[in-house]
């Protein structure tokens, strides 16, 4: 099984609750990037309103980051398919960032890769990722890729 995020663009209001929930869950200081990124544009499908995207690691089936990581720091949890990083193995080479379609990896803190882990510890405890639970409109969901 591979778990992933689903995003309903129509429902997203750009309320940014997911971003702050991500910071609270992972204790990410305000000057560092959150693992979930929300962007708005006015030329999208809901013009003249703002169309938003809310993006984090999707645990891609053919995750290119896993392929390019020279130190095998990036790995996949077998039961959930969640793509995660062992930061003690990361070299900070940023090869993963170059190939990621979601711009999930960031290197802003200590220079080592940090990314969304689908709130792996919450998922293991039977909970939804923090961003999904807090989503005020139900735009974000999480579940098996099929």
């Amino acid at each position: 099984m591979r778990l992933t995020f689903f995003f309903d663009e129509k429902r997203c209001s750009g309320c940014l609750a997911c971003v702050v929930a991500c910071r609270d869950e992972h204790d990410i200081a305000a000057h560092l990037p959150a693992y979930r990124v929300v962007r708005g544009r006015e030329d999208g499908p809901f013009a003249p309103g703002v169309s938003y995207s809310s993006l984090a690691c999707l645990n891609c089936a053919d995750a290119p980051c896993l392929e390019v990581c020279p130190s095998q720091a990036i790995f996949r949890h077998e039961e959930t398919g969640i793509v995660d990083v062992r930061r003690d193995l990361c070299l900070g080479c940023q090869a993963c960032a170059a190939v990621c379609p979601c711009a999930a990896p960031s290197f802003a803190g200590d220079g080592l890769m940090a990314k969304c882990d689908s709130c792996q510890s919450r998922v293991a405890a039977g909970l939804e990722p923090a961003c999904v639970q807090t989503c005020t409109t139900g735009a974000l969901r999480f579940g098996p890729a099929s």
Partner: protein
Amino acid sequence: MAGRKDIYLPGSGVEVKKTLCAICEGASTSCGMNVYVQDGRVLKVEGMKEFPHNRGTLCAKGNATRQYVYNAERLQTPLRRVGRRGEFVEISWEEAYGEIAERLLAIKKKHGAEAVVFAVGYSKWLRPFAQRLAISFGSPNFATESSTCHFATVIAAKLTYGAWGAPDIANCRSLLVWGRNPFFSATPAARPLIEAAERGVNIIEVNPLVTHLSRYATLRLAPHPGSDGVLALGLARVIVDEGLHDREFIERHTYGFDEYRALISRFTPQETERLSGVPAADVVRAARLLATSGPAAIMTSASSTVHHLDGVQNHRAILCLSGLTGNFDAPGGNHVVPETWLHVGCSAVTRQREFTFPRPLAELPPRVGADVFPVWCRFVGEAQAMHLPKQILSGKPYPLHAMLAFGCNHRMWPGNDVFERALEKLDFFVDVDLFLTPTARRADIVLPACSSLERSELRFYSCDHVILTEPAIAPLGLARADSDIIIELARRIAPDDTLLGAGYEACLEYILQPSGLTVTELKRHPSGLSLGGRPGITASGHYKYRQNGFATPTGKMEFVSTVLGEMGFAPLPVAAAPGGDQDMEAADFPLFLVTGVRLPMYMHSRTFRNPWNRQLHPLPTVSLNPQTAAARGIGDGEEVLLRTKRGEVRVRAQLTGVVPGDMACIYHGWPEIEVNRLLHPDRLDPISGFPACKSLRCAIAKAPPLPG
């Protein structure tokens, strides 16, 4: 200590406690919250999944609760001013209580109890306790920031129907959402609104701004700011012209329909288009949809329609559409549910009124604002807070000498520099707050209050849920619950009030008594409990006016308000052209300034201290339509001067097509700029006393470079 990732593991030593969010705190917010606590400290928060009000969600503000509660700027000890305002020394609670009691009792003896004002801003949960203290002390002057929020809509509803009716979103087929964007202001309403749209409910959105709701709307009307009343009268004319009104209801249950009919006859679709900017064809379509696809409910805002000089009349014109189409107190329309507690109506009955008013206000001297806002005083059992600065400065009709305030934010007042002068004139000013705010800095004594996580709170919800929280963590430093502060002061300044003197839980038992709920039972249900099916609890029925009439002087729904007529105001919901008093052609001030439109990460001034919130929108901005900006040579992110007749602020332009071309839209709570100083303190609706925050004329120009 467990690592962060271990907090969900059994045996981690982390306890999940149930509480309410500390930030917005109101009838449509107050979200249920889980806090993960270890060694007395909150490690993480999340929405309470089993809480029916917010169903596990929290907004961008609520998710930053840890940065609010543990903010380095939290006040942790009582302070007393030494020398100039803003300079303090730490004192003990005993010293603080002793001095407050001594000063207030001396002022009462010399000038009368009414010379002491009791004011509550945020939080709001303590209002009944603070008002009871004021009245037991002998002062009628209890005032809240609802003098600029929500209560004018209640006045409009009471003038027209004798009661306020809540939109029945679950059962309506059409929903008129007028000037409200709960996706940013009250997120628990977000999912119910989307679900309604997905069920096929026709959403008619009235809003000059494009909001998230717009994409779900069957029809969107974008009137000029302040022309809401005109638009509502135009909709009414189409409904009546086409014979779509509810004749039987009007015949049997309304007063003044003929005069109303004569009034609306002026507002043809073409005239409505000319005055409001809404295309005539859309006026016709919206009116037909509203009247023929019922039941139809009306959802309004706490401020957008009433922050105008003729705000109450605007709002009355909108509310009349409900009766006109037979939807008032109907299933799927606007349902009247008597208030249970803290502005929320549900099936439970409490003794809120008896608790709040130990004596009738009529036995006390007239309230602040009684001489200028008699309609307000007739319908709202509080002083009109907008008039406070004026009465403090003028001493008329009687002098005010002291203020005991809880979470007061003087920057919310229009022309707040006037309130600053007034605060300095007071002989004695006490402010209770979590932070040393710009208002608290002007106080003689500042007392540190608890956040909601550190104290108990009783809340009812319109979905028939009730919760009594217990403290999830110990108070920070020496902070105390506002209720405990009120009770301790009552023992000293109102010793005859034995109920307050008996303490918080004794008060709750008294308040809860008719509901059959007890403190003990509520404490056994930390996530709260559902009122549905409880013995002795009956849901409010529909069409109650058929038996009881309406609680108006005529016993009918009043198109023509007898109260407004008696008090010298237009008895019909006559809405003037937007902007009313201003020269609309004046080239100097060509745009409407709209202050107070919500941003999703801020709540008045409360969350600017949270880096997680501030990071999302760091700099003050004014939102402008790209064409408006281009005509002035202003680029996105460039600095502009925003100017009214009263002053100017320097702020960055944010260009966005969601704002119409005739408007400049700015959030009101920025710490760096005094937005409300741009407003004139006397530009108030004479019926409600509400400030006209949403139809002031302004000008925008590219800012010259700063010297140096």
